[in-house]
C-alpha cells in the first residue's frame, strides 16, 4: 500500500525528480541545475515548481514535460508551475554539478553572478576543463546553447565551452 500522505508524496516525487536530466546537459539533473525550485502539495495534488535558465531557453518546455511525466508516475494529478521570480542564477548550480561539468569538458561558472565582471567575462581566467591550463582565450561570449560561451585553450589547443556565470 503506497502512503498517500502529502509529506510522503512530496518526498517520493522529489526523489523521482532526481533522475530527470537537463536535456542539453544530460549528465546533470534538473535538481543539480537549480531548475527545480520546489515540490509542494497544494489543493490535493503535487505541484512541481520549475524556473527557466534563460528567457528563451528551448529546454524549458522539454524539462517541464519531463518533470510532469516523472511526477505523474507518483501522483497522477501532479502539475508543473513555471515561475520567473526569483530569476535563475548559476549560483544555484550545486558544487557536485560543477564538478560533473568539468569532468564532461565544460568549464563551470566561476565566481558569483552578483559580480558584473564575471557576467561579461572581463578580466577573469577560465581554466581549461581538459588540461587545467589557465592559458585560455575567449572566442565568443556565445555558444551552442544560451548558457555557454566558447573558449579555446592555448596549452592543449582544444576548444571548449564555458558555462557562463549568470
Amino acid at each position, binding site marked *: 500500500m503506497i502512503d498517500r500522505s502529502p509529506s510522503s508524496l512530496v518526498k517520493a516525487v522529489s526523489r523521482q525528480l532526481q533522475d530527470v536530466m537537463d536535456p542539453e546537459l544530460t549528465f546533470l539533473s534538473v535538481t543539480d541545475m537549480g531548475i527545480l525550485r520546489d515540490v509542494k502539495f497544494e489543493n490535493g495534488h503535487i505541484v512541481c515548481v520549475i524556473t*527557466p535558465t*534563460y*528567457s*528563451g*531557453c*528551448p529546454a524549458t518546455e522539454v524539462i517541464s514535460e519531463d518533470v510532469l511525466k516523472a511526477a505523474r508516475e507518483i501522483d497522477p494529478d501532479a502539475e508543473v508551475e513555471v*515561475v*520567473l*521570480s*526569483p*530569476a*535563475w542564477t548559476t549560483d544555484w548550480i550545486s558544487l557536485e554539478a560543477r564538478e560533473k561539468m568539468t569532468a564532461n569538458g565544460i568549464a563551470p561558472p566561476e565566481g558569483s*553572478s552578483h559580480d*558584473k565582471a564575471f*557576467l*561579461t567575462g572581463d578580466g577573469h581566467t577560465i581554466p581549461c576543463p581538459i588540461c587545467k591550463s589557465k592559458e585560455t582565450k575567449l*572566442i*565568443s*561570449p*556565445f*555558444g*551552442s546553447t*544560451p548558457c555557454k560561451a*566558447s573558449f579555446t585553450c592555448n596549452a592543449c589547443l582544444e576548444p571548449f565551452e564555458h558555462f*557562463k556565470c*549568470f
Partner: protein
Amino acid sequence: MHALLRLGDDALVLAQRLGEWCGHAPALEEDIALTNIALDLIGQTQSYLTLAGSLDPDAPKTDDELAFLRSESEFKNLLLVEQSNGHFGDTIARQFLFDQYALLRAEHLAQQTFDLDAAAIAAKAVKEIRYHAAHSSKWIIRLGDGTSESHSRIQKSIDDLWAFTGEMFAADDVDIAGSIAGLLPDLSALKTQWDVEIDRVLVEATLIRPKDGAMKTGGRTGVHTEELGTMLAEMQILPRTHPGASW
C-alpha cells in the same frame, strides 16, 4: 496592455530581424551570437505578450495570437528595431542603440512594484540584455577603432540610424501614465543615462556622435516604415495560411 505590448513588440521584431542572420553572418561565432541574442529576445517576447494577452479577461489572447495574428498597425514596436539588417555593422549599430535603451528600461522595470509580473520578467531580461549590450558595445569599439574602412562604415551605420533614436524617448500618453503609475521609467531621465553610455562607447570607438536632427516616430502608435510589413508577411505566413498548425 499598451505598455506591455511595446515591450513585447520591441523584443519580437528585433528577434525576427536577428534571426534573418542565421546562416548568413560573417563568421560562425557571430552567427551564433546574433541568433542567441534573438533567442533571449523571443523568450522575453513570450513572457511580455503572454502577460499583455491576459490583461483583458473578456478577450484573452495567447502570445502566439498576438505575435502572428495582428496586423502591421497593431504592432507598437520602435521604428529602430524594424529597420532591415543592412550589413553586419548596420545590425550591430541598431543593436547597440537599442541595447543601451532596453537595459535601462529593464533595470527600472525589474525594480518597480506596480506590476510584479512585469518585474519578474524584467529581472530575468536585465541579465540577458546586459550581456547583449556588452557584446554590441565591444563590436562598436572594435569596428570604430579598427581600420579606416570599418571606422567609416560603422560611423555611417550610426549616422543612418540616429534619426530613429528620438522615438525611444518621445513620451506619449502611455509613457506618461505608465511613468506616473511607476511601471515605466521617466523617459527624460532615461535619456540622460542613455546619453552617458552611448557617449562613453562612441568616444572609446573614436566615433562621432551624430547631431540630433528631425527624428522619425510612429512605431509606438502603429505607423510603421515599409520595412515592417515585409517582415511580418514572412513571419506570419505559416500561422495565417494554416490556422492552428502545430508540430
